[in-house]
C-alpha cells in the first residue's frame, strides 16, 4: 500500500506520535483490511458464545447418559442407561412406533397437497389465490397452544374420538405450510420455458406434471417431506391436545418422563434423538438455506 509521503522529514514520526491517523482513501482501505483480517470482532464472539449456549445442554445430557449413578454427580462410566433404553422400555418403543407411523403418513399427505398447491399458486392466477396464500401462512405463526385447543374443541364438537387419526390430521395441518413454502421457493428457480416446450411437444397436463415438473423440483419436495417428518416427530404441544388413549407418541412419553420423575434413560434417548436429527440435517445439507428461509 502506498501511504502518502509526509512533507517534512520529521513528519512521518510526528504523524506516528500524534493520534491523527492518515485519512487518505488508500490509507483507510489498508487500515480496514488489516482490521478485518486480524480482529476478534463482537459479532464473531457473540456467534461463538451462542453456539456454545445452544450446544451446552445437549453436551451435558449426552455426557451424563454415560454416568453410572442416577444423579448429576459423576460416578464412573456405564452403558447401563442404554441397556435399559433398548431392552427395558417397551412403552417407549411403542410410542416411538406411533410417532413414526404418524410422522410418515402426515408428511406424505402434507407433501402431496402442499406441492400441488404450490404449483397451482406459482403458475396460475385464479380467484382464491390470495386466500390460499394467506391461510397457509397463519398456522405457521399461531402459537401451538391455540392450534391444539381449537382442534380439540373442533374434534369434540363434531364427535370424532381423539386418537391416531386426529393426531395425523393435526400434524398434516401444521406441516402443510412449510411444504408449501419450500416447494414454492424451489419453483421460483424453475425455468418456465421447459413447461411450454413440453406443451408444444404435445404433452398433456398430467404428463407435464409427472414427467417434467415433479422430477425437476424433486429435491425441494424431498427436503420438504423430511422437514415435515422432523416437525411431526418433534411436536408435543399440539399432539398433547388431540391425542387419546392408546395413541401416545414419543414426545408425549418423554413429557411424562420429564414431568414425573427424571430417569437417566431420557439422557440415553437424547443421544439417539440428537443423532437422528443430525442425520436428517445431513441429508438436507444442500437445502439448509431453503430451510432457513422458510422458517
Amino acid at each position, binding site marked *: 500500500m502506498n501511504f502518502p509521503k509526509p512533507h517534512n522529514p520529521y513528519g512521518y514520526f510526528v504523524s506516528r506520535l500524534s493520534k491523527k491517523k492518515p485519512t487518505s482513501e488508500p490509507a483507510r482501505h489498508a487500515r480496514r483490511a488489516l482490521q478485518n483480517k486480524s480482529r476478534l470482532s463482537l459479532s464473531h464472539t*457473540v456467534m461463538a458464545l*451462542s453456539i456454545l449456549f445452544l450446544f451446552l*445442554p445437549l453436551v*451435558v445430557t449426552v455426557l451424563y447418559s454415560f454416568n453410572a449413578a442416577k444423579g448429576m454427580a459423576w460416578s464412573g462410566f456405564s452403558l447401563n442407561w442404554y441397556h435399559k433404553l433398548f431392552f427395558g422400555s417397551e412403552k417407549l418403543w411403542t410410542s416411538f412406533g406411533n410417532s413414526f407411523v404418524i410422522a410418515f403418513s402426515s408428511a406424505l399427505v402434507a407433501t402431496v397437497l402442499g406441492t*400441488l398447491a404450490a404449483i397451482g399458486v406459482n403458475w*396460475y392466477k385464479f380467484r382464491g389465490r390470495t386466500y390460499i396464500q394467506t391461510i397457509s401462512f397463519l398456522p405457521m405463526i399461531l402459537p401451538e397452544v*391455540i392450534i391444539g385447543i*381449537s382442534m380439540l374443541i373442533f374434534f369434540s364438537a363434531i364427535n370424532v374420538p381423539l386418537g391416531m387419526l386426529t393426531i395425523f390430521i393435526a400434524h398434516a395441518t401444521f406441516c402443510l405450510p412449510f411444504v408449501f413454502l419450500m416447494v414454492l421457493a424451489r419453483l421460483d428457480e424453475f425455468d418456465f420455458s421447459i413447461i411450454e416446450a413440453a406443451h408444444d411437444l404435445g404433452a398433456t397436463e398430467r404428463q407435464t406434471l409427472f414427467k417434467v415438473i415433479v422430477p425437476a423440483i424433486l429435491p425441494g419436495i424431498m427436503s420438504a417431506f423430511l422437514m415435515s417428518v422432523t416437525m411431526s416427530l418433534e411436536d*408435543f404441544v399440539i399432539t398433547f391436545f388431540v391425542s387419546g388413549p392408546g395413541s401416545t407418541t414419543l414426545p408425549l412419553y418423554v413429557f411424562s418422563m420429564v414431568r414425573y420423575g427424571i430417569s437417566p434413560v431420557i439422557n440415553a434417548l437424547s443421544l439417539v434423538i440428537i443423532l437422528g436429527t443430525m442425520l436428517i440435517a445431513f441429508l438436507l445439507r444442500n437445502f439448509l438455506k431453503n430451510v432457513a428461509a422458510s422458517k
Partner: protein
Amino acid sequence: MIGRKKLAGRNYGPAYSFPMGFWFSLFFLLPLLIIVAYSFMKKGVHGGVEWQFTLDAYAQMLNSSYAKLFVRTLWVTLVATVLTILISLPCGYAMARSKHQTLLLFLVIIPFWTNSLIRINAWIAILGNEGFINSTLLKLGILKAGLPLLYNQGAVIMVLVYMYLPYAILPIFTAMDKFDFSLLEAARDLGATKSQSMTRVLLPNVRSGIVTAIIFTFIPIFGAYTVPLLVGGKDSYMLGNVIVDQVTKARNWPLASAFSMVITVVSTIGVLWMMGTSAREAARNKAAPVKQDTAA
C-alpha cells in the same frame, strides 16, 4: 421472472390448489371460527358450551385476578424477545459474512430440530437443585448451599431465549445473506463511522428479516406453554398455561376460547405487520431497477 399465465388454454390453478385450500378451511379455519363462537357462549355444566350468547367469558377474563397474568406474560415475552433479537443480530451478521455458512447453519439447526422436551429436560438437569451447576460448584467448594436456579422467572426467560434463538437467527441470516456487504465499505468511504454504517445502511436493508424474527419469537413466546410449566414455578404461569388449565381442569371452554382469542388477535396483527413490511420492501426493490422489457 416467471410469467404467471394460463398454460395451454386451461387454468388448472384451482384444481392444483383446491385440496390444500379445502384442508386448511376444514381443519384450521373452521376450528378457529368455532373458538370465536365458543368465546361468546355460556359455559356448559360438564365442559362444552350451552348455545346462548353471552359476554361472560370476556367479563371473567377482564377480572382483576387475570390482570397480573397478562402483565407477566407480556413482560416475559418482551424481555425474552428483545434478548433473543439482540443476540441473533450479531449472529446472523457473522454467519452471513462467514465462509463456512453451511457448517454454521448446521450448528444452529441441530439444536433447533432436537426434540424440545429433550432440551428442556437438559436445562432442568443443568439448573436443578442437584443439577450440573450446583453439584459442580458444591464439589469444588465454591458454594456451601445450592443456588435456586430453577423454577423462577429468570429460568423461564433464559430457556425461552434458548428455545427461540434459532427462530430469530435464521430469518436474520437469510436477510443479511442477500445484503451486499460492499455497501458497508461504500458507506465507510463516504465518511460514515462503523456504527453509522451498521445502523443506517445495514439495518434498514435487513428490516424485513428483523421483523420476521421478531414475529417468530414474540408470538410463540406469547403463547408459550411447556417452558413455563416445566422450568417455571407456580408464579411464572403464562397465558398458555391458563388456557390449558381452563380446558383440561376447570373445563371452562368459553373462558379458554376468550383467552385464545387474545393470542389469535395479537398474532394476526403481527402477521399483518410482517406481510406489510415485506410487501413494502418488495415494492421498493421492484421500483429500483431500470425497466428493461417494456418494449415487448
